[in-house]
């Protein structure tokens, strides 16, 4: 009977957490917009979550593009189809790897930092102190971070894909000797703006929203002790990675699966 009770308790806790997460989102987003006050805050957060994640995104994008070109070449050359290297690299990056890998890196780099930051603000009573100063922490702390995440991550994903395609060019064309003209032209004939690029960007917006939401909520809802914050930070990375992979399957099925 013990385990039955614990299943029940966990279910109730989970549902309760969803409820609190949703209320937090409402409080942050539905709040009366204070554009003049919030824009500088949001810009600062874009710096923190976006610009500071740039290095890891560029380096990862470059290497992933290079590895894909290398792997793709060894497979394609067996069929005499190494000309299709360009579309292979571009399509996998734009449709799949760009959004997903960026999202996973973003969850690890920016998501965990957001959780820890907000959790520590809670633990050091900064959030309470804002409330006592009659400043709503949802608007002042949560909303700018939420917007910054939603704005930054798609930007990072675009940069990731572009750098990856260039990395593929470096390995495929400059090193392995695929014809540069065919790398680009066959890519152009198979990549479609709406179907591939726009769908990929839609994916990143969904991922960005989910990761930032989870990260902020985990920090906001963390138990304000060092143990609670470390648990919340771990959970942010685990939950948002799982959410990204699960949502990626659903979105891919919706976008590309049905003819």
């Amino acid at each position, binding site marked *: 009977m013990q385990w039955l009770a614990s299943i029940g308790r966990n279910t109730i806790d989970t549902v309760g957490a969803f409820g609190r997460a949703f209320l937090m989102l409402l409080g942050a987003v539905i709040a009366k917009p204070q554009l003049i006050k919030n824009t500088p805050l949001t810009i600062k957060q874009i710096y923190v979550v976006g610009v500071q994640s740039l290095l890891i995104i560029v380096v990862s994008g470059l290497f992933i593009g290079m590895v894909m070109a290398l792997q793709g070449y060894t497979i394609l050359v067996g069929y005499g189809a190494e000309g299709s290297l360009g579309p292979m690299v571009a399509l996998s990056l734009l449709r799949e790897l760009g959004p997903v890998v960026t999202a996973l890196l973003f969850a690890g780099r920016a998501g965990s930092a957001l959780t820890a930051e907000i959790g520590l603000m809670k633990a050091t009573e900064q959030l309470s102190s804002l409330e006592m100063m009659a400043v709503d922490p949802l608007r002042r702390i949560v909303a700018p971070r939420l917007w910054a995440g939603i704005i*930054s991550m798609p930007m990072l994903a675009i940069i990731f894909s572009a750098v990856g395609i260039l990395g593929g060019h470096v390995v495929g064309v400059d090193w392995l000797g695929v014809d540069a003209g065919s790398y680009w032209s066959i890519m152009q004939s198979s990549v*479609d703006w709406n179907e591939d690029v726009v769908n990929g960007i839609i994916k990143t917006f969904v991922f960005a929203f989910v990761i930032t939401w989870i990260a902020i909520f985990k920090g906001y809802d963390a138990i304000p002790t060092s143990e609670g914050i470390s648990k919340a930070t771990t959970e942010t990375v685990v939950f948002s990675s799982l959410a990204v992979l699960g949502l990626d399957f659903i979105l891919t099925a919706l976008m590309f699966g049905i003819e």
Partner: protein
Amino acid sequence: MSSRKVEIMVGLFVVLTLAAGLLLALKAVNQGMSNGAETYTLYAKFDNIGGLKARSAVKVGGVIVGRVDSISLDPDGYTPVVALKISQEYNKFPETSSVSILTSGLLGEQYVGFQPGFSIDGIADLGEGDYISDTKSALVLEDLIGQFLFSKND
């Protein structure tokens, strides 16, 4: 970190994103067709479309002039109907043009080969929604092999 420096870095971030987006838009993506450019639609009935897919290329002498928009089955004769989106740039094809389903290389992608017909007085140009009557179906490798074996047996 002064707010001025933060603003400059975020500005650079935006510029970098725009540059990346531009690279994707100009270098990696096919321009013209299907992203807003003017097109018109032609239809063609085939007996067999082989491996043709939506978004396969439509080529005239190797030059891409359009793409396959959709493939459906004509409810009357149960024959495949292929809708072709042709760029408005090429809007003077005569009615006598023919289309065939070709393969690039032995195992490559299938595409629609468009043969512009002769143009003399009294022959109108193909326009929006017209059917191309002269079509050649895809060559199906299994059929070819079957025919080859059959003729050997003779």
